């Protein structure tokens, strides 16, 4: 009797464990896509949930240094020392769109490195495809820096689609009209 009871317990444990594994695997299959950085960065994985806190604290420091810099030099894009910090922030929290947007301008205008700016922008967009801010930054970047209004228009339309703010929507609407005019002129 005791052996039968023990066997029943063992079977129950195994069944529950099996059900748990099946449920976990099927949940992981339907899990929303995580940013690409999350799959590659050891820093990101090991810092666990606190990585986001570290990213926010770094952003506070970056903001402080930024204001100290513009006190000396109004052209904030020249502050290349901040780029490492922005890179670390986006490695810790790939959803930090503000850091991506600032970094793109620093690479493009401060460093005059269009390739690095484009790479950083595309990394930000692949991690945050539905960010209205980053899509708008991409539209302006493609229109002004790369003189490619057709690609810029695609990003501008995405920005308008994802923005939730009425004022921003009107600003992007104006940008879309300008880009359409540029394409027509070409």
């Amino acid at each position, binding site marked *: 009797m005791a052996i039968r009871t023990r066997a029943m*317990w063992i079977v*129950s*444990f195994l069944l*529950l*464990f099996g*059900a*748990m*594994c099946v*449920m*976990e695997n*099927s*949940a*992981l299959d*339907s*899990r*929303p896509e*995580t940013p690409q950085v*999350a*799959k590659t960065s*050891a820093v*990101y*994985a*090991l810092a*666990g*949930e*606190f990585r*986001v*806190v570290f990213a*926010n*604290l770094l*952003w*506070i420091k970056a*903001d*402080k240094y930024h204001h100290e810099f513009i006190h000396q030099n109004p052209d904030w894009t020249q502050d290349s020392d901040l780029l490492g910090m922005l890179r670390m922030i986006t490695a810790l*929290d790939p*959803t*930090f769109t*503000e850091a991506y947007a600032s970094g793109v301008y620093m690479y493009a205008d401060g460093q005059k490195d269009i390739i690095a700016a484009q790479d950083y922008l595309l990394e930000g967009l692949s991690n945050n495809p539905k960010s209205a801010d980053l899509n708008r930054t991409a539209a302006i970047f493609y229109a002004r820096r790369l003189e490619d209004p057709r690609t810029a228009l695609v990003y501008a339309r995405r920005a308008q689609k994802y923005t*939730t703010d009425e004022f921003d929507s009107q600003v992007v609407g104006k940008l879309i009209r300008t880009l359409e005019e540029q394409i027509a002129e070409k």
Partner: protein
Amino acid sequence: MKPVWIIAKATILENGRKHVFHVLCLLILAVLVGSTLLSIFTEGVKIKMLKDLCMTGILFGGAVLAIALGSSGIPGDVESRTIYPIIARPVTRMQYVAGKYLGTLLTVVYGLAAMGAIFGVLIFAFEGGPDWSLALVMLFAILEVAVVAAVATTMSVFATPATASVLTFMVFVAGSIKIGYFGEMLSKMQGGAAKLTMGVFYHLVPNLECFNIKSVLVHQEVVPVAYLIQVLAYGVICSALVLLIGATRFSAKEV
């Protein structure tokens, strides 16, 4: 079911009198309020920062509360000998463990409810309106805490409160980075005994990362309903399995 509920109510009263519960709750509430001071320094990302810091505080605080209360409940009763009049009554050992677990979980839920209420008020003050996705995020935070409390209760059957706390904390850390770190490590491993061992370890560690749906609140991301239902079922099965192991061991243990 009645004996389980009676033991749970007694556990809630007992936990409510513990200093660790009040201290931890006040500490997390201070972190929540303190995060508003941090976020005012940065224009543009105020709300994101507030939500990030508060949710991390709540998730971590809830887990620490569950560990502290869960790992000391049963050993505390054994040490103070209050367990003897309980097990002398027509109460099975399994009912006793289930009651202790339920009481611990409900105490932590009270704490989380207070934290959630304060967080809701802060969001209302900053955004000018309520954010109903907070309720969903808090529900899954409670589910995470339920798994951690089950692990802590089971560990306390096998080890002393201090050892149980440390071991549960290690499980909590491993579970929090399971998909991002262990999952990636497993996928990069070649076949063989090492991969098999890693696979067994991977499935034995509870996946706490899947309960964290903070992005719904912070980035207004849409999470599929199917995913939420599967995670809910996973949480319930995982808690039941871990608790069953503890209850089975406690049934056979000399007290």
